[in-house]
């Protein structure tokens, strides 16, 4: 009888913790999304400013982006999916190994606002990865809750 109650206690406590964890994850996930939105918006604004300052459409445009026919290069940033979630892996720029700095497609001396925009968008990628991890954890917590609720002990 005592063993039964203690087990029930443990299970109930576990479910409570799972619920609390779920609330925490929801909050964190929301915060993460809000940050993502902010950093994306300010990146876009900076990009717009770059175009504005350089007058017209000939400062930053899609025509400067390499096409299928241009030389190959390696990705600077990769998403790695490991055991404890997604993380973003970055490579240093190294022309001899094929890592090209994309900023230099637009000009040799990129304006300050463009540099800032780049850093904002880089932050965005990190935030997306973080958000994904949180979402996964949240899904996991919800799964556990659903499973645990079906235990006879708690009903």
């Amino acid at each position: 009888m005592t063993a039964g109650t203690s087990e029930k206690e443990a299970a109930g406590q576990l479910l409570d913790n799972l619920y609390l964890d779920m609330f925490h994850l929801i909050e964190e996930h929301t915060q993460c999304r809000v940050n993502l939105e902010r950093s994306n918006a300010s990146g876009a604004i900076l990009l717009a400013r770059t175009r504005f300052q350089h007058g017209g459409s000939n400062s930053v445009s899609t025509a400067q982006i390499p096409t299928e026919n241009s030389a190959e290069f390696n990705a600077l940033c990769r998403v790695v999916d490991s055991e404890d979630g997604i993380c973003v892996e970055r490579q240093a720029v190294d022309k001899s190994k094929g890592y090209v700095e994309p900023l230099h497609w637009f000009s040799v001396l990129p304006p300050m606002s463009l540099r800032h925009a780049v850093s904002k968008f880089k932050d965005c990628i990190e935030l997306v990865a973080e958000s994904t991890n949180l979402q996964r954890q949240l899904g996991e917590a919800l799964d556990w809750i659903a499973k645990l609720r079906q235990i006879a002990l708690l009903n």
Partner: protein
Amino acid sequence: MLKSTIVDPRVRLVPSKKLLEFLDSQKEYLPEVTENLAKIMKQKGFTLPLNIQIIKDKEVVCKRPKIDHPLLKKLTENIKFTSEKPLKNKPDSSKEKDNDEETPNEKKNFLLLSDLHWLNNTLVELRRQDHCQVFLHQLIDTCELILPENELKPRNPELEARCERLRAEQHNRDYLKMTKNVDAGLKHYPEDTISYQIKSLNKQIIAVVQFIFSVAAGFTFGFFGVNLMVGPLPFGFRILLGVIVALIIALAEMYFLAKKLHEYDEVLDAPKRKQQATTPVKRKVVAKPPTEGSQVQTLKPHAD
């Protein structure tokens, strides 16, 4: 309607009657209560004993609880994961019940995460002292969870009007550009007066004449100037010198000429159309073939 940024990312929980009644029944065992919860209890008509300490939200430790994964696995081992439907139905039904019970006025009372943490700690304590055997999940089962949501903001009407105007202008410009080659009447649409055409022609002619003049001057310098400075030179060499100097100047001048002419093109293409407020009136006075006139009139609403 536009979605604005989420201002408050906190999770909120509308306390159910069951929860409040439970707290009311256990109040003599509670050493302390969070500020928020005390306020809610007061509003709902429950009284708290005087010796209860009211603590600030910040004083409650809010940490993500550690989850005992081995135990979790052990407990759920023999449970097959069934479809989520029963689970989904449950909160829905409780939500509806809550919605029926509560008036919108009561919706301002929320439990926040810190309150839930406090509640959990208190319940652990109460269970340890054997006052009750209630779990947090049983209490919040009937509560409505309010997730952070984007506020919907109506678009500023001024901005909307401005956008509308700009869009119309853009469309009109595109249309004129498109039909420029098709309709002979539109070819010189805003600049149909002779003076305007001569003026714009003049600018280009001047640019070209400047080019020719500077090339000629360069040749003259090479042909005569060097000869005068250095002394008598053979005729062939003088011509060669003149051509070389003229070529250099022509190259430099060509660059500027191309730039200037390109500018004219752009100017002619776009912003000049803004000044057409007066021209359409003139057009009406001047006798034109009826087809063209109708064209212009259909365009007019676009322009403004």
